[in-house]
C-alpha cells in the first residue's frame, strides 16, 4: 500500500534545467497553473455579461471581490486599497490551491512548506518595506507601544521583536501543517478500509470498513471547511500585518 505521504511527492512532468538548477515543470507546477487558470476563468467568465443585476455566477465573482475588499477596508482602511490586487491574488491562489487539493489524485501545492513559507515571507518582507518606507525609523516604535512604562522596555522590546519576526513562520507553517495533516488523515483513514478488506476478506472488510469510511466522509467535510478557513486566516493575517505597517498601532 502507498505511504500516506506519497501524495505529497513532487515529480517532474517536463524536465527543465536552467544553469544546472532543476526547475522542471512538476505536478506541483501543473496545479499552480490550474489555480491561476481557474481563478482567471472564474472571475472573467463570471463577469462577461457585466449585468446590472447579476446572475448566479456573476454574483459569486462579485461576492469574492466584495469579501476581500471588505476585509481590507475593515482591517487596513482606505490606504489598503493600493494593495487590494495583491491581497486578492493571495486569497485566490491559496483558496483555489486548497480546494484543488481536495480532488482525488490531485496535488495540493499549499501542503508544501517551501510554497507557503515563500508566500508568507513575501508578505512579511513586503509589509516590512512598506512600514519603513512610510514611517522611516519611527516604524521601530512598533516594538515599543505607546503608553507602556519605560521600565518594561527591556522585556517588552525583545518580546515584540520575536513576535514580529516569527510572523512569517507562523503564517507559513499554519497553512502547510493544516493542509498536510488533513490530507494524511484522509489517506490513513481511507487506507484502513483497504487494510480491513485485505485482512478480513471482502465481506468482513466492507462491514467493518463502514466505521473508517464514515470518518473519511466526516473528515472530508471538515477538510473543505479548513480549505476555506486557512485561506481566510492566511489572508486576514496578511491584512493585519499590512495594517500594522500602514497605521502602526
Amino acid at each position, binding site marked *: 500500500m502507498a505511504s500516506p*505521504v506519497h501524495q*505529497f*511527492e*513532487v515529480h*517532474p512532468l517536463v524536465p527543465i534545467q536552467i544553469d544546472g*538548477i*532543476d*526547475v*522542471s*515543470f*512538476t505536478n*506541483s*507546477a501543473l496545479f*499552480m*497553473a490550474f*489555480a*491561476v487558470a481557474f*481563478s*482567471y476563468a472564474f*472571475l*472573467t467568465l463570471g*463577469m462577461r455579461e*457585466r*449585468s*446590472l443585476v*447579476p446572475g448566479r455566477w*456573476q454574483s459569486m*465573482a*462579485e461576492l469574492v*471581490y*466584495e469579501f476581500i475588499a471588505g476585509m481590507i477596508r475593515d482591517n487596513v482602511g482606505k490606504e489598503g486599497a493600493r494593495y*487590494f*490586487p*495583491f491581497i*486578492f*491574488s493571495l486569497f*485566490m*491562489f491559496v483558496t483555489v490551491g486548497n480546494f484543488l487539493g481536495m480532488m482525488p489524485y490531485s496535488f495540493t*501545492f499549499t*501542503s*508544501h*512548506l*517551501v*510554497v507557503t513559507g*515563500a*508566500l508568507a515571507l513575501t508578505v512579511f518582507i513586503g509589509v516590512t518595506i512598506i512600514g519603513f518606507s512610510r514611517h522611516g525609523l519611527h516604524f521601530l516604535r512598533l516594538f515599543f507601544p505607546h503608553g507602556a512604562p519605560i521600565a518594561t522596555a527591556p522585556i517588552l522590546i525583545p518580546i515584540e521583536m520575536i513576535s514580529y519576526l516569527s510572523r512569517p513562520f507562523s503564517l507559513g507553517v499554519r497553512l*502547510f501543517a493544516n493542509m*498536510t495533516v488533513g490530507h494524511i488523515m484522509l489517506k490513513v483513514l481511507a487506507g484502513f478500509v483497504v487494510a480491513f478488506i485485505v485482512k478480513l476478506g471482502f465481506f468482513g472488510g466492507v462491514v467493518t470498513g463502514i466505521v473508517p469510511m464514515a470518518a473519511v466522509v466526516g473528515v472530508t467535510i471538515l477538510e473543505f471547511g479548513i480549505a476555506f478557513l486557512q485561506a481566510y486566516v492566511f489572508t486576514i493575517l496578511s491584512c493585519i500585518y499590512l495594517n500594522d505597517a500602514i497605521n502602526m498601532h
Partner: protein
Amino acid sequence: MPQFDPSSFPSQLFWLLVSFSYLFFLMSRYALPRIAEVLGERQKRIDDDIEKAAQLKTQISTAAQAYEKALADARAQAQAVFRTSQEEINGQAQSRNQEVANRLAQQISAGEARIAASKDAALSQVREIAAGAAEAVVGKLTGLSLDEANLKKAVNLAIGELGQ
C-alpha cells in the same frame, strides 16, 4: 516526507514565482478592474436613481405647495366676494330701512299735524258749545243775559285750567 526534500525546492519556488506573478498580473490588469467597473456602474446607477427620486420628491412638494397656495387664494377670493356682497346687501337694506323710516316719520308728523288741527277745531267748537251752554244755564238760573266778551273770557279760563 517529501516536504523536507530540498531537491524539489528550486522548481517549486520557480513555478510559484511564475504562476503567482502571472496571477497577480491577470487579476490587477484584467479581472479586478472589470468587476470594479461593473460594481461602480451599479453604484452610479443606484446613486442616480436616488438623486432622481429626490428631485421628483422636491417637485412633488413644490406642486403640493402651489396647490395649497391656489386653494388658499381661491378661499380668500371667495371670502372677499362674500364679504363685499354682504356689505352691499347690508347697505341696500340699511338705505331701504332709512327710506321706510323717513316715510313713516313723515306720515307720523303729517298725522300728528292733522290730529293737532282737528284738536284745535274741536277745542274751538267746545268753547262755543261751552259758552252757549253757560249762557243758557246762567239765563235759566238767573234770567240775566251775559256780556259775550266776559263769557268767552271765563270759558277760556276754565278750559285753560282743565287743560293744565
